[in-house]
Protein backbone atom coordinates (compact mmCIF):
# COMPACT_ATOMS: atom_id res chain seq x y z
CA UNK A 1 0.00 0.00 0.00
CA UNK A 2 2.77 2.42 0.94
CA UNK A 3 4.59 1.43 -2.23
CA UNK A 4 1.54 2.36 -4.30
CA UNK A 5 1.24 5.64 -2.42
CA UNK A 6 4.92 6.35 -2.90
CA UNK A 7 4.68 5.68 -6.63
CA UNK A 8 1.65 7.95 -6.83
CA UNK A 9 3.42 10.79 -5.02
CA UNK A 10 6.52 10.51 -7.21
CA UNK A 11 4.54 10.34 -10.45
CA UNK A 12 2.24 13.22 -9.59
CA UNK A 13 4.51 15.31 -7.36
CA UNK A 14 4.20 18.31 -9.64
CA UNK A 15 0.40 18.06 -9.69
CA UNK A 16 0.34 17.66 -5.93
CA UNK A 17 2.36 20.87 -5.51
CA UNK A 18 -0.43 22.78 -7.27
CA UNK A 19 -3.02 21.23 -4.90
CA UNK A 20 -0.82 22.20 -1.97
CA UNK A 21 -0.65 25.81 -3.11
CA UNK A 22 -4.42 25.94 -3.59
CA UNK A 23 -4.94 24.53 -0.10
CA UNK A 24 -2.53 27.01 1.50
CA UNK A 25 -4.05 29.95 -0.41
CA UNK A 26 -7.60 28.93 0.57
CA UNK A 27 -6.71 28.48 4.25
CA UNK A 28 -4.74 31.72 4.53
CA UNK A 29 -7.33 33.72 2.58
CA UNK A 30 -10.18 32.26 4.64
CA UNK A 31 -8.45 33.38 7.84
CA UNK A 32 -7.57 36.85 6.56
CA UNK A 33 -10.57 37.76 4.42
CA UNK A 34 -14.06 37.49 5.84
CA UNK A 35 -16.44 35.78 3.46
CA UNK A 36 -13.73 34.07 1.43
CA UNK A 37 -13.87 30.71 3.12
CA UNK A 38 -17.64 30.29 3.13
CA UNK A 39 -19.02 27.43 1.05
CA UNK A 40 -20.97 29.46 -1.57
CA UNK A 41 -17.89 31.56 -2.34
CA UNK A 42 -15.57 28.60 -2.68
CA UNK A 43 -18.22 26.90 -4.82
CA UNK A 44 -18.36 30.02 -6.99
CA UNK A 45 -14.59 29.83 -7.46
CA UNK A 46 -14.84 26.21 -8.57
CA UNK A 47 -17.73 27.09 -10.91
CA UNK A 48 -15.55 29.69 -12.60
CA UNK A 49 -12.67 27.23 -12.69
CA UNK A 50 -14.91 24.73 -14.48
CA UNK A 51 -14.72 26.76 -17.70
CA UNK A 52 -10.91 26.83 -17.62
CA UNK A 53 -10.93 23.21 -16.48
CA UNK A 54 -13.04 22.06 -19.43
CA UNK A 55 -10.85 23.89 -21.95
CA UNK A 56 -7.92 22.45 -20.04
CA UNK A 57 -9.01 18.86 -20.78
CA UNK A 58 -8.27 19.21 -24.48
CA UNK A 59 -5.28 21.45 -23.87
CA UNK A 60 -3.74 18.94 -21.44
CA UNK A 61 -4.17 16.05 -23.87
CA UNK A 62 -2.74 18.13 -26.73
CA UNK A 63 0.25 19.24 -24.64
CA UNK A 64 0.96 15.73 -23.32
CA UNK A 65 0.88 14.52 -26.94
CA UNK A 66 3.62 17.00 -27.77
CA UNK A 67 1.31 19.59 -29.34
CA UNK A 68 -0.67 22.61 -28.29
CA UNK A 69 -4.07 24.02 -29.25
CA UNK A 70 -4.11 27.77 -29.79
CA UNK A 71 -7.57 27.72 -31.35
CA UNK A 72 -9.47 26.95 -28.13
CA UNK A 73 -10.45 30.57 -27.51
CA UNK A 74 -11.82 30.86 -31.04
CA UNK A 75 -13.76 27.60 -30.65
CA UNK A 76 -15.29 28.85 -27.39
CA UNK A 77 -16.44 32.01 -29.15
CA UNK A 78 -17.76 30.00 -32.10
CA UNK A 79 -19.94 27.78 -29.88
CA UNK A 80 -21.14 30.74 -27.83
CA UNK A 81 -22.26 32.42 -31.06
CA UNK A 82 -23.43 29.40 -33.04
CA UNK A 83 -25.75 28.10 -30.32
CA UNK A 84 -28.02 31.18 -30.28
CA UNK A 85 -28.01 31.19 -34.09
CA UNK A 86 -29.04 27.58 -34.60
CA UNK A 87 -31.76 27.56 -31.95
CA UNK A 88 -35.02 26.50 -33.60
CA UNK A 89 -38.67 26.50 -32.50
CA UNK A 90 -39.47 22.78 -32.38
CA UNK A 91 -36.43 22.14 -30.23
CA UNK A 92 -38.03 23.03 -26.90
CA UNK A 93 -35.40 21.45 -24.67
CA UNK A 94 -32.58 23.12 -26.58
CA UNK A 95 -30.67 19.85 -26.81
CA UNK A 96 -30.69 19.92 -30.62
CA UNK A 97 -28.99 23.30 -30.71
CA UNK A 98 -26.45 22.13 -28.13
CA UNK A 99 -25.66 19.03 -30.17
CA UNK A 100 -25.30 21.10 -33.33
CA UNK A 101 -22.93 23.61 -31.80
CA UNK A 102 -20.83 20.87 -30.20
CA UNK A 103 -20.70 19.21 -33.62
CA UNK A 104 -19.33 22.44 -35.10
CA UNK A 105 -16.70 22.61 -32.33
CA UNK A 106 -15.67 19.01 -32.92
CA UNK A 107 -15.53 19.63 -36.67
CA UNK A 108 -13.12 22.54 -36.15
CA UNK A 109 -11.01 20.27 -33.99
CA UNK A 110 -11.15 17.61 -36.72
CA UNK A 111 -9.81 20.08 -39.31
CA UNK A 112 -6.96 20.89 -36.90
CA UNK A 113 -6.31 17.20 -36.38
CA UNK A 114 -6.29 16.47 -40.10
CA UNK A 115 -3.85 19.30 -40.77
CA UNK A 116 -1.54 18.25 -37.95
CA UNK A 117 -1.82 14.48 -38.14
CA UNK A 118 -2.20 13.89 -41.86
CA UNK A 119 -0.57 16.91 -43.53
CA UNK A 120 2.18 17.12 -40.93
CA UNK A 121 1.69 20.81 -40.08
CA UNK A 122 3.22 21.86 -36.75
CA UNK A 123 0.42 22.10 -34.13
CA UNK A 124 1.27 25.70 -33.21
CA UNK A 125 0.98 26.80 -36.83
CA UNK A 126 -2.18 24.87 -37.68
CA UNK A 127 -4.11 25.96 -34.59
CA UNK A 128 -2.81 29.52 -34.77
CA UNK A 129 -3.92 29.77 -38.39
CA UNK A 130 -7.28 28.21 -37.48
CA UNK A 131 -7.72 30.77 -34.70
CA UNK A 132 -6.88 33.60 -37.10
CA UNK A 133 -9.33 32.36 -39.74
CA UNK A 134 -12.13 31.83 -37.22
CA UNK A 135 -11.53 35.27 -35.76
CA UNK A 136 -12.07 36.82 -39.18
CA UNK A 137 -15.13 34.69 -39.93
CA UNK A 138 -16.70 35.48 -36.56
CA UNK A 139 -16.41 39.23 -37.02
CA UNK A 140 -17.82 38.91 -40.54
CA UNK A 141 -20.80 36.82 -39.40
CA UNK A 142 -21.62 38.19 -35.97
CA UNK A 143 -20.17 41.68 -36.12
CA UNK A 144 -19.78 43.58 -32.90
CA UNK A 145 -23.18 42.84 -31.38
CA UNK A 146 -23.90 40.44 -28.53
CA UNK A 147 -26.40 37.64 -29.20
CA UNK A 148 -28.72 36.63 -26.36
CA UNK A 149 -29.61 33.01 -25.86
CA UNK A 150 -32.73 31.28 -24.60
CA UNK A 151 -32.02 27.61 -24.19
CA UNK A 152 -33.83 25.55 -21.57
CA UNK A 153 -31.04 23.03 -21.04
CA UNK A 154 -28.37 25.72 -20.75
CA UNK A 155 -30.44 27.68 -18.26
CA UNK A 156 -30.91 24.64 -16.07
CA UNK A 157 -27.16 23.98 -16.36
CA UNK A 158 -26.54 27.40 -14.86
CA UNK A 159 -29.12 27.14 -12.05
CA UNK A 160 -29.52 23.49 -11.03
CA UNK A 161 -27.88 22.21 -7.88
CA UNK A 162 -27.55 18.57 -6.93
CA UNK A 163 -26.90 18.20 -3.18
CA UNK A 164 -25.78 21.89 -3.23
CA UNK A 165 -23.21 21.12 -5.92
CA UNK A 166 -23.78 23.12 -9.10
CA UNK A 167 -24.59 21.27 -12.30
CA UNK A 168 -21.65 22.99 -14.00
CA UNK A 169 -19.24 21.54 -11.43
CA UNK A 170 -20.81 18.10 -11.88
CA UNK A 171 -20.37 18.40 -15.64
CA UNK A 172 -16.72 19.23 -15.08
CA UNK A 173 -16.30 16.30 -12.69
CA UNK A 174 -17.79 13.86 -15.18
CA UNK A 175 -15.64 15.11 -18.07
CA UNK A 176 -12.57 15.13 -15.80
CA UNK A 177 -13.21 11.54 -14.71
CA UNK A 178 -13.57 10.38 -18.32
CA UNK A 179 -10.39 12.23 -19.31
CA UNK A 180 -8.38 10.83 -16.39
CA UNK A 181 -9.59 7.32 -17.11
CA UNK A 182 -8.75 7.63 -20.80
CA UNK A 183 -5.27 9.08 -20.24
CA UNK A 184 -4.19 6.78 -17.43
CA UNK A 185 -6.38 3.72 -17.77
CA UNK A 186 -6.51 2.83 -21.44
CA UNK A 187 -4.08 1.74 -24.10
CA UNK A 188 -4.75 4.66 -26.45
CA UNK A 189 -4.31 7.07 -23.55
CA UNK A 190 -0.89 5.64 -22.78
CA UNK A 191 0.02 5.99 -26.45
CA UNK A 192 -0.63 9.77 -26.22
CA UNK A 193 2.19 9.92 -23.66
CA UNK A 194 4.35 7.84 -26.00
CA UNK A 195 3.77 10.21 -28.92
CA UNK A 196 4.58 13.19 -26.71
CA UNK A 197 7.78 11.60 -25.44
CA UNK A 198 9.17 10.60 -28.79
CA UNK A 199 7.05 10.76 -31.95
CA UNK A 200 9.67 9.09 -34.13
CA UNK A 201 10.06 6.03 -31.91
CA UNK A 202 6.27 5.83 -31.51
CA UNK A 203 5.81 5.87 -35.26
CA UNK A 204 8.42 3.18 -35.81
CA UNK A 205 6.79 1.10 -33.08
CA UNK A 206 3.53 1.11 -34.98
CA UNK A 207 1.60 3.63 -32.92
CA UNK A 208 -1.25 5.00 -35.06
CA UNK A 209 0.00 8.56 -34.65
CA UNK A 210 -2.27 10.06 -37.29
CA UNK A 211 -5.50 8.67 -35.88
CA UNK A 212 -4.56 9.53 -32.30
CA UNK A 213 -3.57 13.07 -33.27
CA UNK A 214 -6.89 13.48 -35.05
CA UNK A 215 -8.67 12.20 -31.93
CA UNK A 216 -6.66 14.55 -29.69
CA UNK A 217 -7.72 17.67 -31.54
CA UNK A 218 -11.32 16.53 -31.94
CA UNK A 219 -11.42 16.09 -28.16
CA UNK A 220 -9.83 19.48 -27.71
CA UNK A 221 -12.41 21.13 -29.98
CA UNK A 222 -15.24 19.31 -28.24
CA UNK A 223 -14.04 20.31 -24.76
CA UNK A 224 -13.57 23.93 -25.81
CA UNK A 225 -17.11 23.73 -27.18
CA UNK A 226 -18.39 22.44 -23.83
CA UNK A 227 -16.56 25.27 -22.09
CA UNK A 228 -18.16 27.71 -24.51
CA UNK A 229 -21.63 26.37 -23.64
CA UNK A 230 -20.88 26.64 -19.93
CA UNK A 231 -19.64 30.19 -20.37
CA UNK A 232 -22.77 31.00 -22.35
CA UNK A 233 -24.98 29.59 -19.59
CA UNK A 234 -23.22 31.87 -17.10
CA UNK A 235 -23.22 34.97 -19.31
CA UNK A 236 -26.60 34.63 -21.02
CA UNK A 237 -25.20 36.07 -24.24
CA UNK A 238 -22.43 35.38 -26.69
CA UNK A 239 -20.24 37.96 -28.37
CA UNK A 240 -17.02 38.08 -30.38
CA UNK A 241 -14.11 37.87 -27.98
CA UNK A 242 -15.96 36.03 -25.20
CA UNK A 243 -13.44 33.19 -25.37
CA UNK A 244 -10.28 35.28 -25.64
CA UNK A 245 -9.12 35.09 -22.00
CA UNK A 246 -9.32 31.30 -22.02
CA UNK A 247 -6.45 30.60 -24.40
CA UNK A 248 -3.73 31.88 -22.09
CA UNK A 249 -5.45 30.69 -18.92
CA UNK A 250 -5.86 27.16 -20.30
CA UNK A 251 -2.15 26.98 -21.09
CA UNK A 252 -1.28 28.52 -17.73
CA UNK A 253 -3.50 25.98 -15.93
CA UNK A 254 -1.84 23.10 -17.76
CA UNK A 255 1.66 24.32 -16.93
CA UNK A 256 0.88 25.31 -13.33
CA UNK A 257 -0.55 21.81 -12.94
CA UNK A 258 2.87 20.39 -13.66
CA UNK A 259 2.34 19.05 -17.18
CA UNK A 260 5.52 19.50 -19.19
CA UNK A 261 5.00 21.92 -22.07
CA UNK A 262 7.50 19.75 -23.98
CA UNK A 263 5.08 16.83 -23.97
CA UNK A 264 5.09 13.28 -22.70
CA UNK A 265 4.73 14.08 -19.03
CA UNK A 266 1.89 15.27 -16.85
CA UNK A 267 -1.65 14.59 -15.85
CA UNK A 268 -5.04 16.20 -16.05
CA UNK A 269 -5.11 15.89 -12.26
CA UNK A 270 -2.70 18.81 -12.09
CA UNK A 271 -4.65 20.92 -14.59
CA UNK A 272 -7.69 20.75 -12.29
CA UNK A 273 -5.62 22.28 -9.49
CA UNK A 274 -4.07 24.74 -11.95
CA UNK A 275 -7.49 25.97 -13.04
CA UNK A 276 -8.70 26.42 -9.45
CA UNK A 277 -5.39 28.10 -8.59
CA UNK A 278 -5.74 30.64 -11.42
CA UNK A 279 -9.29 31.55 -10.46
CA UNK A 280 -8.35 31.77 -6.77
CA UNK A 281 -5.52 34.16 -7.54
CA UNK A 282 -7.80 36.31 -9.68
CA UNK A 283 -10.40 36.32 -6.90
CA UNK A 284 -7.80 37.36 -4.32
CA UNK A 285 -6.62 40.21 -6.52
CA UNK A 286 -10.22 41.33 -6.97
CA UNK A 287 -10.77 41.25 -3.21
CA UNK A 288 -7.98 43.73 -2.56
CA UNK A 289 -9.73 46.01 -5.06
CA UNK A 290 -6.81 46.54 -7.40
CA UNK A 291 -7.01 48.51 -10.63
CA UNK A 292 -6.77 46.64 -13.93
CA UNK A 293 -3.07 47.43 -14.20
CA UNK A 294 -2.28 46.07 -10.74
CA UNK A 295 -4.45 42.98 -11.35
CA UNK A 296 -2.55 42.09 -14.50
CA UNK A 297 0.80 42.86 -12.86
CA UNK A 298 0.11 40.75 -9.78
CA UNK A 299 -1.27 37.80 -11.76
CA UNK A 300 1.80 37.78 -13.98
CA UNK A 301 4.18 37.98 -11.01
CA UNK A 302 2.31 35.16 -9.28
CA UNK A 303 2.64 32.87 -12.29
CA UNK A 304 6.34 33.77 -12.57
CA UNK A 305 6.74 33.12 -8.84
CA UNK A 306 5.11 29.70 -9.17
CA UNK A 307 7.49 28.60 -11.91
CA UNK A 308 10.10 27.17 -9.52
CA UNK A 309 7.38 25.09 -7.91
CA UNK A 310 5.90 23.76 -11.13
CA UNK A 311 9.10 22.22 -12.38
CA UNK A 312 11.52 23.21 -15.07
CA UNK A 313 12.87 22.14 -18.38
CA UNK A 314 15.84 19.93 -17.61
CA UNK A 315 17.12 19.48 -21.12
CA UNK A 316 19.99 21.71 -22.03
Amino acid sequence: MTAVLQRFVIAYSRSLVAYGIVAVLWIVASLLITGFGVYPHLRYIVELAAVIGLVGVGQTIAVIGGGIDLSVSAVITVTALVLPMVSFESDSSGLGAIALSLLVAAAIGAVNGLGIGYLGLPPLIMTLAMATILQGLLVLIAGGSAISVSNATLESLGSTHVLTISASILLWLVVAAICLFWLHGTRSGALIFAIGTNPMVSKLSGVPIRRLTLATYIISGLCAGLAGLLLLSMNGQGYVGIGDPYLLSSIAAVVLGGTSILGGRGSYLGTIAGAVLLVTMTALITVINASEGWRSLILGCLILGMLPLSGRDQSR
Partner: protein
Amino acid sequence: MGGKGARLYWRVQWRRNDGLGALFLVLVLFAILYAILFPGIFAIGAASKFVQGWFPTAMVAAAQTIVMLTGGIDLSVGPMVSLGSVVAASTMEGPLGIFGGVLAMLALGGGVGAIVGAFVAIGRYPAIIVTLALSFVLRGVALLIMPRPGGFVPRSLSDFLAGVHPTAAVLLVLLVIVWKLYQATPLGVGLIAVGDNAEGAYRSGVNVTTARMCAYIASGILQGFTGLYMAAKTGSGDPLIGEPMTLAAISAAVLGGVGFLGGQGTMRGALAGSLLMSIMISVMFFLHLPLVAQYIMQGLIIVVTVALPLIRASMRRGT
Protein backbone atom coordinates in the same frame (compact mmCIF):
# COMPACT_ATOMS: atom_id res chain seq x y z
CA MET B 1 37.47 35.92 -47.93
CA GLY B 2 39.17 33.85 -50.61
CA GLY B 3 37.55 32.75 -53.87
CA LYS B 4 36.62 29.29 -52.70
CA GLY B 5 35.32 30.51 -49.33
CA ALA B 6 33.17 33.16 -51.00
CA ARG B 7 31.69 30.62 -53.41
CA LEU B 8 30.90 28.32 -50.53
CA TYR B 9 29.35 31.17 -48.57
CA TRP B 10 26.99 32.12 -51.38
CA ARG B 11 26.11 28.50 -52.08
CA VAL B 12 25.19 27.97 -48.43
CA GLN B 13 23.23 31.20 -48.39
CA TRP B 14 21.35 30.13 -51.53
CA ARG B 15 20.50 26.75 -50.04
CA ARG B 16 19.01 28.46 -47.03
CA ASN B 17 16.28 29.77 -49.38
CA ASP B 18 14.96 26.21 -49.67
CA GLY B 19 11.32 26.03 -48.72
CA LEU B 20 10.85 29.76 -49.10
CA GLY B 21 9.98 29.48 -52.80
CA ALA B 22 6.23 29.42 -52.22
CA LEU B 23 6.44 32.44 -49.95
CA PHE B 24 8.53 34.48 -52.39
CA LEU B 25 6.15 33.56 -55.23
CA VAL B 26 3.06 34.65 -53.28
CA LEU B 27 4.92 37.79 -52.22
CA VAL B 28 5.76 38.73 -55.81
CA LEU B 29 2.17 38.08 -56.92
CA PHE B 30 0.82 40.32 -54.19
CA ALA B 31 3.42 43.00 -54.94
CA ILE B 32 2.40 43.02 -58.63
CA LEU B 33 -1.26 43.21 -57.66
CA TYR B 34 -0.45 46.06 -55.30
CA ALA B 35 1.51 47.95 -57.95
CA ILE B 36 -1.40 47.57 -60.40
CA LEU B 37 -3.95 48.76 -57.88
CA PHE B 38 -1.82 51.61 -56.63
CA PRO B 39 0.73 52.76 -59.24
CA GLY B 40 1.62 55.76 -57.04
CA ILE B 41 3.70 53.47 -54.82
CA PHE B 42 6.78 54.18 -56.94
CA ALA B 43 6.94 57.79 -55.74
CA ILE B 44 9.44 58.24 -52.92
CA GLY B 45 6.86 59.70 -50.51
CA ALA B 46 4.33 56.92 -51.01
CA ALA B 47 7.05 54.31 -50.79
CA SER B 48 8.28 55.81 -47.49
CA LYS B 49 4.76 55.74 -46.13
CA PHE B 50 4.40 52.11 -47.17
CA VAL B 51 7.65 51.15 -45.47
CA GLN B 52 6.52 52.98 -42.35
CA GLY B 53 3.40 50.84 -42.29
CA TRP B 54 5.47 47.70 -42.69
CA PHE B 55 8.26 48.71 -40.29
CA PRO B 56 6.66 47.80 -36.90
CA THR B 57 5.62 44.34 -38.13
CA ALA B 58 9.06 43.78 -39.61
CA MET B 59 10.72 44.77 -36.33
CA VAL B 60 8.60 42.51 -34.13
CA ALA B 61 8.94 39.70 -36.67
CA ALA B 62 12.72 40.08 -36.42
CA ALA B 63 12.53 40.15 -32.63
CA GLN B 64 10.39 37.01 -32.61
CA THR B 65 12.69 35.29 -35.12
CA ILE B 66 15.81 35.84 -33.00
CA VAL B 67 14.09 34.16 -30.06
CA MET B 68 12.52 31.37 -32.12
CA LEU B 69 15.88 30.53 -33.70
CA THR B 70 17.17 29.66 -30.22
CA GLY B 71 14.21 27.33 -29.77
CA GLY B 72 12.22 29.74 -27.63
CA ILE B 73 9.14 31.82 -28.23
CA ASP B 74 8.10 35.24 -27.01
CA LEU B 75 4.43 35.73 -26.16
CA SER B 76 5.07 39.12 -24.55
CA VAL B 77 5.94 40.99 -27.76
CA GLY B 78 2.69 42.95 -27.89
CA PRO B 79 2.67 44.16 -24.27
CA MET B 80 6.38 45.01 -24.56
CA VAL B 81 5.68 47.21 -27.59
CA SER B 82 2.84 48.87 -25.68
CA LEU B 83 5.08 49.46 -22.69
CA GLY B 84 7.74 50.91 -24.99
CA SER B 85 5.26 53.33 -26.53
CA VAL B 86 3.98 54.37 -23.11
CA VAL B 87 7.45 54.91 -21.66
CA ALA B 88 8.59 56.81 -24.76
CA ALA B 89 5.60 59.11 -24.59
CA SER B 90 6.05 59.83 -20.89
CA THR B 91 9.83 60.33 -20.68
CA MET B 92 10.60 62.53 -23.65
CA GLU B 93 9.00 65.69 -22.33
CA GLY B 94 10.94 65.36 -19.07
CA PRO B 95 14.51 66.44 -18.38
CA LEU B 96 15.84 63.47 -20.34
CA GLY B 97 14.96 64.93 -23.71
CA ILE B 98 14.77 62.98 -26.93
CA PHE B 99 18.22 61.45 -26.66
CA GLY B 100 17.73 60.38 -23.04
CA GLY B 101 14.28 59.07 -23.89
CA VAL B 102 15.61 56.91 -26.70
CA LEU B 103 18.37 55.59 -24.44
CA ALA B 104 15.86 54.87 -21.67
CA MET B 105 13.74 52.98 -24.20
CA LEU B 106 16.60 50.81 -25.38
CA ALA B 107 17.67 50.17 -21.78
CA LEU B 108 14.11 49.18 -20.89
CA GLY B 109 13.87 46.77 -23.84
CA GLY B 110 17.24 45.25 -23.05
CA GLY B 111 16.36 45.03 -19.37
CA VAL B 112 13.11 43.19 -19.96
CA GLY B 113 14.90 40.93 -22.43
CA ALA B 114 17.52 40.22 -19.76
CA ILE B 115 14.77 39.26 -17.29
CA VAL B 116 13.26 36.79 -19.78
CA GLY B 117 16.76 35.56 -20.56
CA ALA B 118 17.50 35.03 -16.87
CA PHE B 119 14.40 32.85 -16.50
CA VAL B 120 14.84 30.94 -19.76
CA ALA B 121 18.61 30.71 -20.25
CA ILE B 122 19.77 30.51 -16.64
CA GLY B 123 16.65 29.24 -14.86
CA ARG B 124 15.79 26.83 -17.72
CA TYR B 125 12.08 27.49 -17.54
CA PRO B 126 10.03 27.00 -20.71
CA ALA B 127 10.00 30.27 -22.66
CA ILE B 128 6.32 29.89 -23.54
CA ILE B 129 5.15 30.10 -19.93
CA VAL B 130 7.75 32.68 -18.81
CA THR B 131 6.81 35.11 -21.56
CA LEU B 132 3.12 34.34 -21.09
CA ALA B 133 3.38 35.38 -17.44
CA LEU B 134 5.58 38.32 -18.34
CA SER B 135 3.00 39.54 -20.84
CA PHE B 136 0.59 40.02 -17.92
CA VAL B 137 3.26 41.87 -15.95
CA LEU B 138 4.19 44.19 -18.82
CA ARG B 139 0.55 44.90 -19.68
CA GLY B 140 -0.04 45.76 -16.02
CA VAL B 141 2.95 48.11 -15.84
CA ALA B 142 1.94 49.85 -19.09
CA LEU B 143 -1.60 50.37 -17.76
CA LEU B 144 -0.24 51.71 -14.47
CA ILE B 145 2.02 54.23 -16.20
CA MET B 146 -0.72 55.34 -18.57
CA PRO B 147 -4.25 54.04 -17.97
CA ARG B 148 -5.44 55.58 -21.24
CA PRO B 149 -3.71 56.79 -24.39
CA GLY B 150 -1.86 60.05 -23.85
CA GLY B 151 1.55 61.51 -23.31
CA PHE B 152 3.59 63.32 -25.85
CA VAL B 153 6.35 62.63 -28.33
CA PRO B 154 8.39 65.60 -29.65
CA ARG B 155 7.31 66.65 -33.11
CA SER B 156 10.86 66.53 -34.41
CA LEU B 157 11.21 62.84 -33.51
CA SER B 158 7.89 61.99 -35.18
CA ASP B 159 9.00 63.85 -38.30
CA PHE B 160 12.35 62.13 -38.29
CA LEU B 161 11.05 58.58 -37.83
CA ALA B 162 7.65 58.71 -39.49
CA GLY B 163 7.71 61.81 -41.66
CA VAL B 164 8.33 62.08 -45.40
CA HIS B 165 11.89 60.75 -45.15
CA PRO B 166 12.63 57.09 -45.83
CA THR B 167 14.10 56.73 -42.30
CA ALA B 168 12.26 53.47 -41.68
CA ALA B 169 13.72 51.95 -44.84
CA VAL B 170 17.24 52.98 -43.77
CA LEU B 171 16.66 51.49 -40.32
CA LEU B 172 15.53 48.20 -41.89
CA VAL B 173 18.67 48.06 -44.01
CA LEU B 174 20.70 48.78 -40.87
CA LEU B 175 18.88 45.97 -39.09
CA VAL B 176 19.79 43.51 -41.83
CA ILE B 177 23.45 44.65 -41.85
CA VAL B 178 23.74 44.37 -38.05
CA TRP B 179 22.12 40.92 -38.21
CA LYS B 180 24.62 39.78 -40.86
CA LEU B 181 27.51 41.10 -38.76
CA TYR B 182 26.11 39.41 -35.66
CA GLN B 183 25.86 36.15 -37.59
CA ALA B 184 29.57 36.45 -38.33
CA THR B 185 30.46 36.45 -34.63
CA PRO B 186 30.75 33.28 -32.52
CA LEU B 187 27.71 34.41 -30.53
CA GLY B 188 25.66 34.76 -33.71
CA VAL B 189 26.64 31.30 -34.89
CA GLY B 190 25.88 30.01 -31.41
CA LEU B 191 22.39 31.50 -31.61
CA ILE B 192 21.26 29.10 -34.34
CA ALA B 193 23.43 26.23 -33.10
CA VAL B 194 21.79 26.39 -29.69
CA GLY B 195 18.34 26.23 -31.23
CA ASP B 196 19.25 23.38 -33.55
CA ASN B 197 20.93 21.16 -31.00
CA ALA B 198 21.72 22.65 -27.61
CA GLU B 199 23.55 19.58 -26.34
CA GLY B 200 25.73 19.43 -29.46
CA ALA B 201 26.40 23.16 -29.34
CA TYR B 202 27.44 22.88 -25.71
CA ARG B 203 29.81 20.02 -26.46
CA SER B 204 31.30 22.03 -29.34
CA GLY B 205 32.17 24.83 -26.96
CA VAL B 206 29.27 27.22 -27.52
CA ASN B 207 28.33 29.08 -24.39
CA VAL B 208 24.68 28.11 -24.48
CA THR B 209 23.58 30.39 -21.66
CA THR B 210 25.26 33.49 -23.12
CA ALA B 211 23.97 32.81 -26.63
CA ARG B 212 20.39 32.52 -25.37
CA MET B 213 20.77 35.49 -23.04
CA CYS B 214 22.05 37.72 -25.85
CA ALA B 215 19.19 36.61 -28.10
CA TYR B 216 16.56 37.65 -25.56
CA ILE B 217 18.29 40.98 -24.86
CA ALA B 218 18.57 41.76 -28.59
CA SER B 219 14.94 40.78 -29.08
CA GLY B 220 13.88 43.00 -26.17
CA ILE B 221 15.77 45.99 -27.57
CA LEU B 222 14.06 45.55 -30.96
CA GLN B 223 10.65 45.34 -29.27
CA GLY B 224 11.33 48.41 -27.13
CA PHE B 225 12.38 50.33 -30.21
CA THR B 226 9.19 49.24 -32.00
CA GLY B 227 7.26 50.75 -29.09
CA LEU B 228 9.19 54.00 -29.47
CA TYR B 229 8.45 53.96 -33.19
CA MET B 230 4.73 53.39 -32.63
CA ALA B 231 4.70 56.33 -30.19
CA ALA B 232 6.51 58.53 -32.71
CA LYS B 233 4.14 57.45 -35.48
CA THR B 234 0.96 58.18 -33.53
CA GLY B 235 2.40 61.12 -31.57
CA SER B 236 1.38 59.65 -28.21
CA GLY B 237 1.60 56.58 -26.03
CA ASP B 238 -1.06 53.86 -25.89
CA PRO B 239 -1.01 51.07 -23.28
CA LEU B 240 -2.79 48.65 -25.63
CA ILE B 241 -1.35 49.58 -29.03
CA GLY B 242 0.86 46.50 -29.24
CA GLU B 243 -1.82 43.88 -28.43
CA PRO B 244 -2.26 42.54 -31.99
CA MET B 245 1.50 42.40 -32.50
CA THR B 246 2.18 39.20 -30.55
CA LEU B 247 0.21 37.19 -33.08
CA ALA B 248 1.44 39.25 -36.03
CA ALA B 249 5.07 38.64 -35.04
CA ILE B 250 4.57 34.89 -34.73
CA SER B 251 2.56 34.73 -37.96
CA ALA B 252 5.20 36.65 -39.91
CA ALA B 253 8.00 34.46 -38.58
CA VAL B 254 6.06 31.27 -39.27
CA LEU B 255 5.12 32.49 -42.75
CA GLY B 256 8.82 33.08 -43.28
CA GLY B 257 9.67 29.49 -42.48
CA VAL B 258 11.01 29.97 -38.96
CA GLY B 259 10.41 26.76 -37.03
CA PHE B 260 9.14 26.45 -33.49
CA LEU B 261 11.78 23.93 -32.52
CA GLY B 262 14.65 26.32 -33.08
CA GLY B 263 17.63 26.40 -35.38
CA GLN B 264 15.41 26.46 -38.41
CA GLY B 265 14.59 29.51 -40.49
CA THR B 266 16.07 32.72 -41.76
CA MET B 267 15.74 36.40 -41.00
CA ARG B 268 15.08 37.12 -44.70
CA GLY B 269 12.15 34.72 -44.56
CA ALA B 270 10.66 36.41 -41.52
CA LEU B 271 11.05 39.86 -43.08
CA ALA B 272 9.44 38.58 -46.30
CA GLY B 273 6.63 37.11 -44.21
CA SER B 274 6.00 40.43 -42.50
CA LEU B 275 6.14 42.23 -45.86
CA LEU B 276 3.56 39.85 -47.30
CA MET B 277 1.21 40.52 -44.40
CA SER B 278 1.69 44.25 -44.80
CA ILE B 279 1.08 44.20 -48.58
CA MET B 280 -1.91 41.92 -48.10
CA ILE B 281 -3.59 44.43 -45.79
CA SER B 282 -2.98 47.24 -48.27
CA VAL B 283 -4.28 45.20 -51.21
CA MET B 284 -7.42 44.25 -49.33
CA PHE B 285 -7.91 47.90 -48.49
CA PHE B 286 -7.68 48.87 -52.15
CA LEU B 287 -10.04 46.05 -53.13
CA HIS B 288 -12.56 47.43 -50.59
CA LEU B 289 -12.67 44.13 -48.74
CA PRO B 290 -13.70 44.33 -45.09
CA LEU B 291 -10.61 44.68 -42.96
CA VAL B 292 -11.43 41.53 -40.97
CA ALA B 293 -11.15 39.47 -44.14
CA GLN B 294 -7.40 39.95 -43.73
CA TYR B 295 -7.48 37.51 -40.81
CA ILE B 296 -9.01 34.82 -43.01
CA MET B 297 -6.47 35.47 -45.75
CA GLN B 298 -3.59 35.51 -43.27
CA GLY B 299 -4.63 32.18 -41.77
CA LEU B 300 -5.13 30.57 -45.17
CA ILE B 301 -1.81 31.85 -46.50
CA ILE B 302 0.02 30.54 -43.42
CA VAL B 303 -1.49 27.08 -43.83
CA VAL B 304 -0.90 26.98 -47.58
CA THR B 305 2.70 28.21 -47.53
CA VAL B 306 3.63 25.81 -44.75
CA ALA B 307 1.62 22.86 -46.09
CA LEU B 308 2.67 23.06 -49.76
CA PRO B 309 6.31 22.01 -49.27
CA LEU B 310 5.15 19.25 -46.89
CA ILE B 311 2.66 17.88 -49.43
CA ARG B 312 5.27 18.07 -52.19
CA ALA B 313 7.81 16.27 -50.04
CA SER B 314 5.41 13.48 -49.16
CA MET B 315 4.42 13.07 -52.81
CA ARG B 316 8.07 12.80 -53.77
CA ARG B 317 8.51 10.04 -51.20
CA GLY B 318 5.48 8.39 -52.73
CA THR B 319 3.58 7.91 -49.49
